């Protein structure tokens, strides 16, 4: 007996143009993400990495082709439904952290749970658990505006995972950090993804960052191709 395993994410013949007459930035692109996989996508500036991320997150729609998440075609969902799906299934880590300055660290981390309607004390317990895991529990009562870049990105990672998403999308998460902090953050991300059994797609320019992923793809001319792992750079354990 053969069981067909539904991929977590399937991008099927995706094409996306910025203008109708322009060359496609993504051209009949295919991608399949297996459950538990941590994928890095690299590419030059303007190659369409962020466009691809937006399509995966349901923030943008392809001109043709389908984005299937656990077998569900995102095109069949309206804006509210996509937003609700994203709220529950996706976690984000941004280059610029985007931590709300007027909320405490704990409130920032608990924000996705707030949106999902999780009530206290479960909400606070879960947020504290993630802060603990990210090594920043002591910062819980402080305001985000008082913190360093590294601390802010740890908060962002905690926020991205607090609601146990199926997929984490990280867009240049170390772009605003120094090399040492970047390594720490990548290690933390990897650990927490593993602990949460979450999948992840990492968009990056950095070979070092990409090296932390299970698989690396190169986006060029609208297509994804496997990229060789640089022998010079060891993967983060």
């Amino acid at each position: 007996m053969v069981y067909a395993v539904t991929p977590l994410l399937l991008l099927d013949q995706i094409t996306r143009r910025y203008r109708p007459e322009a060359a496609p930035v993504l051209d009949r692109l295919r991608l399949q993400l297996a459950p538990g996989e941590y994928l890095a996508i690299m590419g030059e500036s303007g190659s369409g990495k962020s466009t691809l991320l937006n399509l995966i997150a349901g923030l943008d729609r392809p001109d043709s082709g389908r984005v299937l998440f656990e077998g569900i075609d995102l095109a069949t969902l309206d804006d509210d439904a996509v937003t609700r799906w994203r709220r529950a299934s996706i976690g984000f880590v941004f280059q610029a952290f985007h931590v709300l300055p007027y909320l405490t660290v704990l409130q920032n981390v608990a924000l996705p749970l707030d949106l999902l309607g999780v009530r206290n004390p479960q909400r606070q317990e879960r947020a504290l658990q993630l802060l603990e895991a990210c090594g920043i529990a002591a910062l819980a009562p402080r305001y985000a505006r008082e913190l360093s870049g590294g601390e802010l990105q740890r908060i962002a990672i905690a926020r991205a995972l607090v609601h146990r998403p199926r997929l984490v999308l990280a867009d240049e998460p170390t772009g605003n950090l120094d090399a040492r902090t970047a390594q720490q953050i990548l290690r933390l991300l990897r650990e927490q993804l593993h602990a949460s059994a979450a999948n992840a797609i990492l968009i990056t320019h950095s070979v070092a960052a990409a090296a932390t992923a299970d698989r690396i793809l190169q986006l060029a001319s609208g297509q994804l191709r496997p990229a060789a792992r640089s022998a010079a750079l060891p993967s983060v354990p």
Partner: protein
Amino acid sequence: MNRSDRARGAWIAWRALTRSQLRGHPLQLLATVLAIALGVALGTAVYLVNSAALTEFDQAARRLVGSADIVIRGPPEGFDEALFASLARHRAVSAASPVLDLQVTLPGQRPPLQVLGLDPFRAAALQPALLGEIGADVTGLFARDTIMLSRSAAQVLELRRGDALTVIVGGAPKSLRVIGILSDAVYPEPLGIMDIATAQWSLARIGRLNRIDLRLRPGAPADAVRAALAAELPPGVVAVTPAIERGRALTATRAYRVNLNTLALVALLTGAFLVFSTQSLAVLRRRSVLGLLRALGVTRPQLQGALLGEGAAIGAAGSLLGALLGALVAALILRHLGSGFGNRAMIAGGAVLVLPSLAIAAFVLIGTAVACLGAWIPAREAARRAPALAMKAGDAEPSLRRLPTTLPGLLLIAAGAILAWLPPIGGLPLAGYLAIAALLAGAVLLIPTLMRWITGTATRSGHATLDIAVAQLQGSASISTVSLAAIVVSFSLMVAMAIMVHSFRNSFDLWLVKLLPADLQLRLSAFSDTGALALDQQTRIAELPGVARAQFRRVRQIWLSADRAPLALIARDIDPAHAGDSLPLLRAAQQSLPDGTQPAWISESLQDLYGFQPGDRLLLPLDGRLLPLFVAGIWRDYVRPDGAIVVARAAYIAATGDQSANEGSLWRRPQVSAPALEAAVRASLALGDALELIGGEQLRERSLRLFDQAFAITYALEAIAVAIGLVGVGVAASSSALARRAQFGMLRHIGMLRRQILGMLAIEGVIMSTLSAIYGLLLGAALSLILVYVINRQSFRWSIDLAIPWRQLAALSTALITAAALTALWSGRAAMSQDAVRAVREDW
């Protein structure tokens, strides 16, 4: 770096910044420019109309009294003409001209006509142009019942040479023959000229004069001579110089001018707050550009200069536009409303608009300076910020939070509270105005502290949208001050004005009800000197079958002091034991009536102007004698700002023998209709429409309508100020939403629905506008106390009772909250239309 390099750097920075503002936010710039323009326009218009009126007043005074150094004035009833002979012989006097200067009653309920009875040959010494104009007609003036009219009088009355002019003298019409029309060059205002003897005969003033113009010998000291002459004058006759008369005219209108100018200042200050808001938010929005300019080598002073220059450019544009608008409005007011803005004392016929370039330049400078003041703090803060910080994304709140606000706010409020208790300065409520300014500034400075305190006490609801909204407001309290300053200032002033006007209207209405209890009021041409009902006419009216009760009054002018305008003496039926039943009495004397005196009730103005108190004695000059009076009480009068005194008519008749009356009140029998009674009264007198008859209720309605019209412009200006404040809220909301685009983008990414974000903005808008409305209401209520009890009392010398227009305030607050919330939401929606996905990639 030399001076020209510094200037060039500032110029380059200014150009870059202003261009980005002009291209990026032209509507916000336009709103700010319009706010300044409004303030300058109002100030310019008030100034131009006033200066036109005062110039015309000066010229008219010069035409009417010629080159007189001293003018002797008496009441309209006049003084014995023997005084002329004695003054003309005075060694310091080189020329004297006897005059009968009367406002003659006209039929048809027209305004009275000023008529000068002159001795043409004596008047020629002081007014040579007049005799030249009269020329060969001079002999005609000596004929019985003849008059010459100025061209404007002839036009208004539609008369030509040879026509008959009917005037009312006593209780009867009299016909005068027009023998000539004077050109506008001599008297542009409506005026009649008669020979003095003819005037005395025709206008029932035989042997009487009420004015003597004196020219002094060269070198004679006018003030000393005036003082010497004053000592020789009979009671109720005063000696004044043209300068005193001008000063009196200025004083009479000063409170109105100061109030109108204050309104202009309020508009200008609201504009300054808007400049402050716009510039502060523009600085926040362009932090990265400012940082870049600093990184490229623009120095702190250059950057500060550029931002100040931006404020100055806004101010200059607004001020120039405002000056033009002001001139246009002034021209329209002079053409359609006259120079009085509804205040009779200020009206000068034929006032012509002149545009004094120095004054206009001063207004433009003031507007520009106010805008610079608004731009100064944001410019200083921007220049102080380190370039690296300015270029980097960050939180603008801390830089604003560093500014001390709580202590200065409390100090200013304390200063305002103290200033409110100070007496008038030079007769003007300047301390009251300063108190309002201090309270406003103090209250604005306290907004961040209050905002932090209020939002800090709010507990978390567990709803992400509400909690983020509250946290946002708490965290951005200083920026909120910038957003709310203009709306709080304009709304609180509108609330204060609404309470003051409502209180005034309420008091005015009660006053009308008290003073006009009768069914029908009758009057012989208001403000005229010659019309009066004789005793037999009064009896005829009182005995009409439809009249249940009749009361007649004699109202006349009395000079108490040369430095002040004449007061009104009202002789009427009054029961001293129950004066409060028919007079709006405020205080009564505790002492009993001293022997040999008559009770008198003085208005608040008289109390303020002359310092009389209940229980005081005063000597009233009446027909050359002094009538001893006892101040039995103070009453409220909203009609005569120069003061009024009520005495019992019986006492007045006993002292003067004058039984005539020029006003009356009639109560009709139940079975008689008001129109029937009116017809019967008119038929009994055969005075035609010279007699003004109006129902008590009708008069009340007319008075209240005029009251509302007078304050309509105030409401319109306040509404504009609030609209400008709302523009400020819109500017702030859109800037804030723009600055938070990345935040909205992140929230969209993590699963917040678009409507949830809009809901969050709406919550923020409602919280902010509700707090603004509540704060504005409280502040406005405090300011209204100063307006009612300090500024109104000191400006107009009458009191009003505080009354709160609850319904109006509720409607105003609801309108404000709705408008501000919608403005904030609309501005946020505009920012939300930006691509949320792109926004999270913007790092600023």
